[in-house]
């Protein structure tokens, strides 16, 4: 239990630092802002209870908000991601089902499954995040384009990160 806690704290810290010092500096034509730290919500254990998942998601987003000076935005987005995660897991469950002690990673369930899992959760996160940021439906399609491009790049970075973790 303590082991788990330590493990996820390290994962989160690494992702937070990567996000702040690397990915937040990527401003590719104004349409690409990858938010790779959402990988943390993807990796949380399968058998975590729903309310704990929501609260941890909120805290993860909130810490991000504090670090980047955007109170509420990341928190709102990560809570949405944490909220849809169980539904997505149910929708794309692999043929043999999930094993409680297995990590929800590419190494355990394969590329195809992980790709769809990451794509859906990241899409929800980015959708909420960018619309909270603009906070109106004016310029709907411009924001939507931003969501799509950023999602693609975030998913690419997340897949890279998973390959890196697997190789280690």
């Amino acid at each position, binding site marked *: 239990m303590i082991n788990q806690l330590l493990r996820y704290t390290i994962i989160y810290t690494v992702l937070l630092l990567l996000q702040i010092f690397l990915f937040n500096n990527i401003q590719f034509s104004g349409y690409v802002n990858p938010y790779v730290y959402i990988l943390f919500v993807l990796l949380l254990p399968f058998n975590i209870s*729903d*309310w704990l998942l*929501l*609260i941890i998601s*909120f805290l993860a*987003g909130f810490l991000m*908000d504090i670090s980047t000076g955007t*109170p*509420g*935005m990341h*928190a*709102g987005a990560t*809570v*949405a991601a944490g*909220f849809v995660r*169980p539904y997505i897991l149910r929708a794309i469950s692999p043929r043999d089902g999930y094993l409680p002690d297995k990590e929800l990673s590419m190494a355990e369930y394969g590329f195809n499954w992980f790709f769809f899992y990451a794509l859906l959760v990241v899409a929800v996160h980015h959708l909420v995040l960018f619309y*909270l940021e603009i*906070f*109106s439906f004016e310029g709907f399609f411009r924001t939507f384009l931003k969501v799509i491009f950023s999602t693609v790049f975030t998913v690419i970075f997340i897949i890279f990160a998973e390959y890196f973790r697997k190789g280690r």
Partner: protein
Amino acid sequence: MRNLLLFIEKYNRIILFIILESVAVYLISNSYQYHNTQLIKGVRKLTLTWEGVITDVKNYLRIKNINNELQAENAILWNLIEKYGLTTDSVLAQVNDTFPGAQFEIIPAYVVNNSVNKIKNYFTIDRGKKNGVDVNMAVIGYRSVAGITVASSDNYSIVMPVINTDFRLSSRIKSNEYFGSLNWDGRDCRYAVLYDIPQHVPINEGDTVVTTGYSAIFPAGIMVGTISDFKKSGSDFYTIRVHLATDFRKLTYVKVIKNRRQQEQLNLEKKFQ
């Protein structure tokens, strides 16, 4: 209680989700002026729509009363026509070309917004410059004083009612013709106070108070209200509480009275000031 607990247990993740999202939105709206404004704009749009619906329903429910008032008023007007021996045709003809001899012109209007619970109350009517309504015109409710227009746009006008502490009205007690200044004390929207009536004048509860017409805004003799009680206030004058004839909480249909000779009177008076 048990059902409530069951409900919370069943939907706990959705409830928690909503709570956490609300916290996030609260944080956002607290830290960004822009988001805050957007949120307030959205809420205001919602409340305005809802208030519009409520007003519509209220007006619909009151249609019968308004109808009765209008009928009674119509009857009085018809009686007047008969009294002066005018026929229907001649009245219509006068209305059509608003005959030049008339000093006062009447413009009917509906109250579209109203307040009674402030110190400086105002209400809005749906007639403006396009309909000939301008500032400093008298507004009367159902046969009694309501207020004075203080601003007008193309289609709307703002009226300062009697129940605004800035309102002053020269009015007289009908039975003995003494006049004083009527003013609202900011307390009860049913009562106003009449000052400057000297103490040697005999007055009674229930006496009628009407306008004097000195201001060139109100025609003379329009009902203001009735005396509800009075007391001697130190000096030589009475402080008289007047029960207003107009119920401002129910104001729906008003008439704006335009004095065509107002400018002429004021210009002449200016020469001697």
